[in-house]
């Protein structure tokens, strides 16, 4: 496994964690709107 492999795999993981965080942010906003 080369450095490039690590770069692209880590980038993918960071992006998908961000997407999951985005889901949580949307959910939190929804709850605050409903209050």
């Amino acid at each position, binding site marked *: 496994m*080369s450095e490039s492999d690590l770069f*692209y795999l880590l980038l*993918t993981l960071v992006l*998908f964690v961000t997407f999951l965080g985005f*889901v949580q942010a*949307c*959910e939190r906003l929804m709850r605050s*709107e*409903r209050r």
Partner: protein
Amino acid sequence: MTANGIAQILLFFFVLLLITKPLGVYMARVFNGECTFLHPFLFPLEKAIYKIMGVRQEEEMPWALYASALVLFSLAGLLITYLLLRMQALFPFNPQKYGSQLMPPDLDFNTAVSFTTNTNWQSYVPESSVSYFSNMVALAVHNWMSAATGIAFALALIRGFARRNAHSVGNFWVDTTRATLYVLLPLTLVLALLLVWQGVPQNFSPYVKATTLEGAIQTIPQGPVASQEAIKELGTNGGGFFNANSAHPYENPTPLSNFLEILAIFALPAGLTYTFGKMVGNSRQGWALFAAMSAMFLLGAFVCYSQEQRGVPLLAKSPLSLQLAASSLQPGGNMEGKEVRFGIASTALFATVTTDTSCGAVNAMHDSFTPLGGLVPLANMMTGEVIFGGVGSGLCGILVIAILAVFIAGLMVGRTPEYLGKKIERYEVTMAILVMLIHAAAVLGFTALASDMKLPAHSPWNRINGTATYVGAPYNNVNNPGPHGFSELLYAFTSTVNNNGSAFAGLNANTPFYNLTLGLAMLFGRFLMLLPTLAIAGSLARKKWVLPSAGTFPTDSATFAFLLVGVAVIIGALTFFPALALGPLVEHFQMLAGKLA
């Protein structure tokens, strides 16, 4: 335009109209868990899949869990694809002995992202770098999974509209399993057999060496083409078995195969409009969406066809005095980059259909279209793929536009907007605007970056993979200077952000810079637009139903379809007109002024 060409487009639309309702009814039955004629064969398999996966069919998910399952499922698929491509030399069905040196990490990242996101942008050359195993297991599997994911995405949003005071939008695993088993599998099987009948190969044989009449040796690639071709169209994926995609005679050998492929691209997105109407309890709602999509489709098809049939006026005035009018001996118009066996009308129709949806298969090189002919595919994608759109994602796109349309209509009459008995409030409009902003920012931002970024002449970020050629600044990767070159860049990022995947051609994108930026564009376009839409589904599902009143804007009428088209066109035009003006529009006026080389 010729009568024959117009008849081809109208015949296609008529057949589409005929299949929309039966497909829509069938899908509604499948996704409501009702019995269909395929249940005796497939239900035991469905149950076995749930048992193996540990899925409890009756357990439903709130939107955030549904969205997280979708994201994690995509992540797993992406990582597996990346690793399979990196290690393809270790696997069977590789008669050409392709190894990982042909697919460096940046290209593998781009390819894995591309197939996971239903984009199927291909920076690699399929027939000379990817084994049969990689094609079938790493790539074609995504043609099923990403399409099924798209359908699941649409179902969640439909349930958001259809349910009242509900905290769940369905079960992601059940939706994807049913979409694959009952919808994609049988249709793919039928289409693959029809394509084999038309001459598309389906084998595992090594490539054939043939001696041409001049004595040269020609390599003729083949493989399991028909199966991949069928799901490529039905799942609006678009990634070809060959680099020339559906222009290749082994992917698309006859005018009939061409017709079937175009129909297959539109079939499920069109059917889903009826499914939507059926599931929300008013099929007229679905027909209103169908009408709006059809109006935009027909407009695009006829503009593209008329421009291509008109050809390039300069050629008639050149010393060659080329005849641009169609006659019994030749098709006239602009035949550059088109296949003789399809002609101009079928090619314009294919280009319009493939960019209306997020398919991206091509049967001609869009780079060779006239400036306004090439503008149509670009503009289609810039609407956000809402003209039938990708399987599932297109329906969601038009529903987001519908939310904005009722919001605008509500502002005009001073009432709280409603759609399908649900009040459209601040949260839904915020999320809808977020989708629009992410779309525009990603397309224009990445295009601006590639157009203006400076890189050192020997930067490894812009070295063409497999060669020692350093290109320097990313703008140098375009083959044409001036507005056409800008169109090539704009097309690439419009195509990837919208998960279309078709290429304008003329852009050498197989470098680390483009593989990375195009990969990011695909991921942002898929997930950052999909997740706010799912959030809308979750928010709507929790709402109670409001009885229609005298002030309710009817959304199953021709007026609403007209408003929908207006909002889609105005949003697209306001956002992207300046970029289009710098590309195809300038090129059109240059052509009329005789300033093109």
